[in-house]
């Protein structure tokens, strides 16, 4: 079967046996930015569950009680709508920033990147930098190798376990969880999820690493669709760098017919996904900018201007002007703004009260001794507020309707659901149809803004 050579190369790339990548440690501006992002994000992840707010955990996705607490906000399953909006915001933010500045998410904020950085940082402290790591892995097993590897894995293991514990701490109160850990009193599922998440962390950050980005990440596959000629990407300036080649310091490369690239391959050695950025933009590139840092260091040593590898756009590379404001950016930006403000407005103005009405399914209607038609309803009053309220029930829709509800008003404790069976009676002469619309109205006695009106069906005979 005849195939274009390039495609074969890509196929080979996907099918080839994985070889371990030993990224060289790098220092520089972008490394500092990554370190900053890592510190802030990991600090948030490990720290936030310990924050208290109003006598409870500030951020808690309380699965057992089906309530999500985020500082002052409490979300109920009824607020699922906001979760959907939140996902839309996340998606559009991703589109917006990808179009603007490429894979910012991958390089600086993705949990995969952040934990891999952390695990690599530990690996570098214990096993040494790239050459030492390669040497160690090639050397036969001896006491020293076992000691080094065991230390690394012990630290990774503890860190992974702590990560798993923190993860579960977002779903069950972390302080109680910690006491349970100390007392060896964890429930089966809690233990399971701590180990599961810990194992996933250890595997993803310690072993899978760049393979997660290359083989498993859906975003990495489709992000290219959001790129255009004005997107900020990390590029090697081939015009300036080629022809590459080694030379002595202080020699004018133009005399040797060389470009600025000294072919030191450091950009390849620092790459966490093991690619050569000089081959152009590749889908494996997660935009971490490690190659920029290391190349700038080399350029400085050589006395050449920095930026042989740099953040740039395709247009800029070709000497054309770069446009920041372009239709895509404007549309993504506007949608992002729209969804964000809609969500915030919705949350700020939502009524922490819900009324569900279920008609009694056993009988359609019943005639009372007085000759009235009676329907029975099951009301579910959900008080989502953080304090108790007394709610008054009333109805409207048919003339002369009588509501038989006991008790009325209904006392509903803070953050709970109260069910009540109510009967509605009406004189059959008022029924023009077999099915009539009526409305249940519920209003808090202490706050008229806490009010809900819900539609229901009243069934009866047609006279």
């Amino acid at each position, binding site marked *: 079967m005849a*195939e274009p050579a390039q495609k074969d190369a890509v*196929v080979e790339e996907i099918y080839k046996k994985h070889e371990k990548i030993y990224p060289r440690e790098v220092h520089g501006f972008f490394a500092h930015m990554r370190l900053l992002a890592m510190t802030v994000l990991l600090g948030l992840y490990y720290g936030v569950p310990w924050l208290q707010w109003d006598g409870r955990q500030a951020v808690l996705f309380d699965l057992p009680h089906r309530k999500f607490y985020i500082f002052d906000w409490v979300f109920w*399953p009824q607020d699922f709508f906001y979760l959907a909006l939140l996902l839309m915001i996340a998606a559009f933010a991703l589109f917006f920033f990808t179009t603007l500045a490429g894979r910012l998410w991958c390089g600086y904020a993705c949990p995969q990147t952040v934990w891999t950085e952390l695990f690599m940082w530990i690996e570098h402290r214990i096993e040494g930098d790239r050459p030492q790591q390669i040497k160690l892995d090639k050397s036969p097993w001896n006491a020293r190798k076992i000691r080094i590897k065991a230390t690394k894995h012990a630290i990774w293991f503890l860190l992974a376990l702590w990560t798993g514990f923190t993860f579960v701490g977002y779903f069950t109160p972390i302080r109680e969880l910690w006491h349970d850990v100390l007392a060896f009193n964890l429930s089966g*599922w809690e233990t399971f999820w701590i180990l599961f998440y810990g194992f996933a962390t250890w595997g993803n950050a310690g072993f899978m690493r760049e393979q997660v980005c290359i083989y498993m990440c859906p975003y990495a*596959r489709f992000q*290219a669709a959001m790129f255009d000629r004005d997107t900020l990407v990390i590029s090697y300036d081939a015009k300036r760098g080629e022809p590459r080649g080694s030379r002595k310091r202080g020699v004018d490369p133009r005399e040797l017919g060389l470009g600025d690239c000294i072919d030191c391959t450091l950009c390849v050695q620092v790459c966490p996904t093991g690619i050569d950025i000089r081959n152009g933009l590749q*889908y494996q590139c997660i935009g971490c900018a490690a190659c920029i840092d290391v190349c700038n260091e080399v350029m400085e040593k050589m006395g050449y201007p920095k930026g042989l590898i740099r953040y740039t756009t395709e247009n800029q590379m070709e000497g054309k002007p770069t446009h920041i404001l372009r239709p895509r950016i404007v549309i993504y930006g506007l949608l992002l703004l729209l969804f964000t403000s809609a969500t915030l407005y919705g949350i700020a103005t939502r009524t922490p009260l819900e009324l569900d009405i279920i008609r009694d399914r056993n009988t359609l209607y019943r005639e009372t001794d007085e000759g009235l038609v009676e329907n029975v309803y099951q009301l579910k009053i959900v008080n989502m507020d953080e304090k108790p309220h007394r709610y008054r029930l009333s109805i409207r829709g048919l003339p002369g309707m009588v509501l038989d509800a006991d008790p009325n008003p209904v006392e509903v404790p803070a953050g709970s659901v109260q069910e009540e069976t109510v009967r509605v009676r009406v004189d059959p002469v008022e029924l023009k149809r077999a099915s009539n619309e009526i409305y249940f109205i519920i209003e808090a006695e202490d706050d008229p803004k806490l009010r809900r009106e819900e539609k229901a069906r009243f069934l009866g005979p047609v006279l």
Partner: protein
Amino acid sequence: METTHGDHHAGGPDAGLPAIQQVVSVLWPSFLTAGIATIVTFTVFDPLQIAQCMGEPGLTRLGAYSTGFFVFWLFAAASSGLTCYFRRPTDRIRG
């Protein structure tokens, strides 16, 4: 970037794909879909009510969420696995 690898490649779609990658390509997408399915299902339905209907009153919510997740994962993985299986060219099965 995006490759239509396999389909025209000699030896069938999954020829040469390391076993571990084949397993991951079944387990990973089903893990993602199972996560989404769990969130959506248990937002709409309270697992305790489902448990009551099924006559399992002893189940805790955390247990129900976890079990639900793994059941979804199993079904999604079965679907992914079958897709992989049916993608094999028939001539290779005949030998």
